[in-house]
Structures are given as C-alpha cells and as structure tokens.
C-alpha cells in the first residue's frame, strides 16, 4: 500500500507544472484567427508602433506569457532574466522574441516550434553552443536573427531561408560550410566579425546564389580578401584582419562595391589595377596599414569621395595620385582625404594634388608624430 502511494506521488511530482490545458487550447484557436486577420508581410518594422493594447486582463483567457517576460503587440520580451533555456509557453503568433542577456546554452528542436509568424529573434549575449538542425523548421518567416556573443563554432545548419539579416558577431566560428547560406535569397546583411575565421574556413561556394549587400568580417584572421563572397556586395568591411596585400584579382567579383573597409590590416601594397574592378567605389578606408604609396587608380574612380590613408608609411604624394589629369574627366569631388601620420613632409605636397576636392576641410595632412 505504502509503495502504491509513493508511486502515485512520484507520478505527480514528475509531471510538469502550469498551463491549464483548457485555456491553452482556447488561446491557440484565438491566435490562429488573429494571424489570418493581420498577417502583414510588408510591415518590416521591428517594433510596431501602434497604440499599445493595455492588458485589461480578460481573466478566463489571460494571455499566455512566460513569467517575468512581457508579451504585447506580438513582441515577447524576455531579456536579462537569467533564463537557461528558451521558455516553452511563447504565444504562437509572436513576431519578435527578445531573449538577449540570458544564460541559454542551446536552441533545442522544439523551442521555436509553431512560431510561424516569427520575424525577428534576438538571442545575442547568451551561452549558445548548439542549435538543433531542426530548430528553425517552423519559423519560415524569420527575417532577422541575432546570435552575436555566443559560443557557436560554425554557422548553424538549416537556418531559415527567409533570413534578411544574420548577426553572429563574437562567437567562435571557424568554418562556413558550403551549405550554410544555401537558398537564402533575401539575405542582405551578414555580420560575422570577431570570430576566429581564416580564409580557409570559408568553403568554396558558400555564398553561391546569395545576394548579400553588406558583409562585415572584421576582427578575424583573414590574410587576404576572400574571393568568393557574393558579387552583389555594396559594402565590404574587413578591418582588423591580417591582410598583407591587395592583389589584382581581389575585387574582380565585386563590381558594385561602394564602401570598402580595410583599416587596421597589414597591407603593404595595392596592386596596380586592382581598384579598376570597383568603378562604383565611394569610400575606401585603408588607414592603419603599411602602405608605402597612395594606392594607384584613385583618379579614375568617378564616384570616390572618401579615402582614408592615415597611419601608413607613405613618404610622398604625387601630384596626380588623387585627381584626374584631363580636365574633361568627370569626377565626384573628394569630401574626405586623410593622410596624417605618414612619414611625409606636407610642405612638399603640391597644392594642385588636391585640385578636385569639395572644400579645403576635405584634406587632413600633417600631425606626423616624431
């Protein structure tokens, strides 16, 4: 008899607490209705700004919301709660979940199950080292995924194809598989800086068919400009790497590039003709490198306006290094050229070197420290 009682209690105790099933199912039905009513795909705003619905507490159908989180207007806020896993009772019509600054270690298979309206998911600043390959199976509308400041060692498999923005800054990513971005037709922004990524870690073909506009792989271990990034790139940021040289073919794929960040590398030389591949370039940052001369080809970049060359080893500037020689050639005026902290004597720079600048404030020379 005693054993029987014990067993009974054991059964009771091992059961999960909470969530009266009665109102839970009722809520499910309601959510489905809501979803049909205002499923606005075009509204890309992260934070909808309609008048908030004040919870007037309809008691029998109290909104399902994890304790301590706030759920309103289909946004679930659960940041800074010390959570060790993704809460299980997230309303199924949720558009955005903020789980940043918790202690989540893993995204499990069913953690996001049924969240078919999810548009943005912030998991940054957790301890995630593992994401189940089926975790994102339901989230077919996910556009923004923030995974920065976690412990991931590779770009997770099977991320939603719908992603427009992926941020995976400051993880331990060493490898980008060939399939990592496969089918992500609308991926536009990719931020994966501060990862121990070598050039060899990017598998050939990893970016095939992807039209990313903005990639940042700063603070990594790159020794050259990766050659297989998407040809759609408008902005490429590779600052704080170990790139030693810009070669002729480096930008051959990136014809639309407008902004190029290569500051704080070890670049000694920009090979003649390499910048001719990027005719749309507007801004190039090459500060804090080891350049011995102004990169060749600048006068022919019609749209170029900003050139950062400070903190290099450039001993002199030629009169035609920046501006075209033929007067007839159209060229946007420079709005920013920095040359300070180079071993040059500024009084030896011919004033006509800067005949194509916007205003005299557009050039910063001097300040060479002894």
């Amino acid at each position: 008899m005693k054993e029987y009682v014990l067993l009974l209690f054991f059964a009771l105790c091992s059961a999960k607490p909470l969530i009266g099933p009665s109102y839970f199912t009722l809520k499910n039905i309601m959510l489905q209705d809501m979803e049909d009513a205002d499923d606005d795909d075009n509204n890309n705003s992260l934070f909808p700004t309609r008048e908030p619905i004040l919870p007037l507490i309809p008691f029998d159908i109290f909104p399902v919301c994890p304790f301590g989180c706030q759920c309103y207007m289909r946004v679930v806020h659960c940041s800074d709660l010390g959570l060790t896993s993704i809460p299980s009772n997230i309303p199924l019509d949720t558009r955005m979940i903020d789980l940043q600054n918790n202690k989540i270690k893993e995204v499990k298979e069913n953690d996001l199950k049924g969240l078919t309206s999810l548009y943005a998911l912030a998991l940054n600043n957790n301890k995630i080292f593992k994401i189940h390959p089926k975790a994102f199976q339901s989230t077919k509308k996910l556009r923004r995924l923030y995974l920065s400041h976690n412990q991931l060692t590779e770009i997770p498999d099977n991320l939603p194809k719908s992603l427009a923005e992926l941020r995976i800054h400051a993880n331990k990513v060493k490898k980008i598989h060939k399939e990592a971005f496969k089918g992500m037709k609308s991926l536009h922004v990719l931020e994966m800086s501060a990862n121990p990524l070598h050039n060899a870690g990017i598998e050939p073909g990893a970016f095939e068919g992807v039209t990313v506009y903005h990639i940042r792989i700063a603070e990594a271990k790159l020794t050259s400009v990766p050659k297989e990034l998407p040809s759609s790139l408008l902005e490429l940021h590779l600052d704080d790497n170990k790139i030693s040289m810009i070669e002729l073919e480096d930008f051959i794929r990136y014809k639309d590039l407008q902004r190029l960040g290569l500051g704080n590398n070890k670049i000694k030389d920009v090979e003649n003709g390499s910048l001719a591949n990027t005719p749309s370039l507007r801004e190039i940052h090459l500060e804090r490198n080891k350049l011995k001369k102004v990169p060749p080809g600048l006068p022919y970049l019609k749209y170029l306006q900003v050139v950062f060359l400070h903190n290099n080893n450039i001993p002199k500037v030629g009169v035609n290094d920046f501006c075209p020689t033929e007067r007839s050639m159209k060229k946007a005026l420079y709005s920013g050229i920095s040359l300070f902290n180079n071993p040059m004597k500024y009084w030896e720079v011919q004033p006509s070197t800067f005949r194509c600048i916007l205003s005299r404030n557009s050039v910063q020379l001097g300040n060479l420290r002894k």
Partner: protein
Amino acid sequence: MKVSLIFLLLLPVCLAKPFHQKGLFDFMLEDEGSADIPATEEPIFPGLGPVCPFRCQCHLRVVQCSDLGLDKVPKDLPSDTTLLDLQNNKITEIKEGDFKHLKDLHALILVNNKISKISPAAFAPLKKLERLYLSKNNLKELPENMPKSLQELRAHENEITKLRKVVFNGLNQMIVVELGTNPLKSSGIENGAFQGMKKLSYIRISDSNITGIPRGLPPSLTELHLDGNKINKVDAESLNGLANLAKLGLSFNKITSVDNSTLANVPHLRELHLNNNELSKVPSGLAEHKYIQVVYLHNNKISSVGTNDFCPPGYNTKKASYSGVSLFSNPVQYWEIQPSTFRCVYERSAIQIGNYK
C-alpha cells in the same frame, strides 16, 4: 534599397559647389594650425551631411551600428531614422547634441556600452521615442527629462542607487520599467517614485538590494517582479490598491511572513511566486482568493499545510482553478498533507509536493 543608397551617397556630390581655387596654402596652413587633433583619432570631415555612418547598416530607417567599437554616438545620422541600435560599443557618454534631428526615432538601443553620463538635454529632441534600452552600462542614476512619449525603459545591470520621483513624473505613456541588477536599496527609492506614471503596467527590480516592496506603486500595475532581493516581509500596505496586479514575483528573497490581508489587497492576482524564501506557513487568503492559479512555495520552511490553506471550505467559491502549486523542498512531509487539501484542484498534475531531501 540599392537606388536609395546610391542616392544618399550621391547627395553630397550634387550639393557640392563648383570647385574654387583657394589661397594656395590655405588648407595646409589650416592643417598645421589644427595640430591639436590627437594623432590616433578618426579624421573629422565637416559637411558630409547625413549619410549612413561607415560600417553601420542603414535600411528601412533602421540604423544598425552594433559591435563596432565606437566610443561615441556617430554624427550626422539620417534624420528619418526610427530605430538606432548602438549596442556593444564603447560609448562612455551621451552628449547634448548626439540625437538632434532624430525626431522620428522610436527606439534607441544603447545596451552594453560604458555610459556613465547622459547630458540632461540629450533626449530632448526625441519627441517620438518609445523604447529606451540602457542596460549594461555604468549609470549611477537615470537621466532626467526622458521623453514623455516613452513606453519602455530598460536599465538593467547599471550602478543605479537612486530612483527619484522627478525622473519618472509625467511619463504617462510608460508601460514597462526594467531596473534589475542594480545596487539599489529600498532607501534609494523615493516614496511614490513610480506613482507619476499613469499607465505603468510592469516593474522589475530583480537582483538588487531591496528590503521591502516599494510604497506608492501605481494602481495600473499588472506585474511586479522583485525576485532576488532582500525582502523579509510581504507588507499588505504596499500592495494596497493594486487592483490590476496579476503577477507578483518575490522568489529568492528572505521573506519570513506574508501579512494576512495581502491577497485581499490584490484581488486579481493570478500568479504568485514565493519560492526560495523562509516562509514557515502557507500565506493566508489563498482559499478565498478568486483568481489565483499559480502559487510557488517550494524551497521554504513550511512545516505543515492545513486542509483549508488552499481551498475554500465549501465548493463554488473559487472562480479559477489552480494550474500550478509547488510545495516541494519544504520540511512538510507529503504524507502529512491531507488529500482533501487540494479538493478544488481538478488537474492533479497541477500540484508538486514531494522531493524533499
């Protein structure tokens, strides 16, 4: 997107006046004169006009500048920006002009910087700001003059020791205030500090040094989270008038007693977390309470449970049934609890008793 980006970038070019030859050495001399620019600083070029700051992404009026090592707020942000994300940088100070022109800004994310100072006028231009996230900084106090349009304020993990009434007064759109993990003591919270916020629904001040539930909470409150503090007593008076309170989180405190009329003062409470405290008995008033559904009492010092502690003597008095009651890790032995104690619970998995070590 591509077209608008190009347009933005071309704008300064189009606005540029035709080139005029200046005095030959003008700019060089100027440069010489301005030798006070620290050598390692970023160059400053005036007159570029509002463009997307280098390395940031600007898309659909969202300006995304997180994780860039910035030590100040970038200048000349596009004036139609609605969301500005500056998290994970090294910004130390918010200066007066940092957000001027950002009249459309709805959300400002400054989480995880090193901000210790906010100029009193910094937020003044932000007439539409609804969300202000200041968590993980070095603030000692919340800024005065926050926009009246604010709905959500997060300042988790700062060094805040003081909450003054004047800071919150008139913030009548505010719904959520999150101030957890600050070295905040009860004496640092001015009486009625939160009262000036007429719509306030959610307060969280967890993991701080509070010793009692703050007085003068606004009646609009639906959630109050004070877990991880040093509260030793639930004082009924501080909850008086909170007719809308639905969730009360008081776990991980040092609560030894709950005033008798506490539950009567919060007639619409649905969820009460009192786990990990020092309670010696089940709080009174649960049986008469109409809406309470979840009561966490595990990890306390409850040594006995009476048959009328949870359920009313007769039937049909309670409107909502319990969906979660936890009593495990208490000195009370489960076989000492009469089965009839939970006669008003229809879901047997709703009760967790055993596991006392």
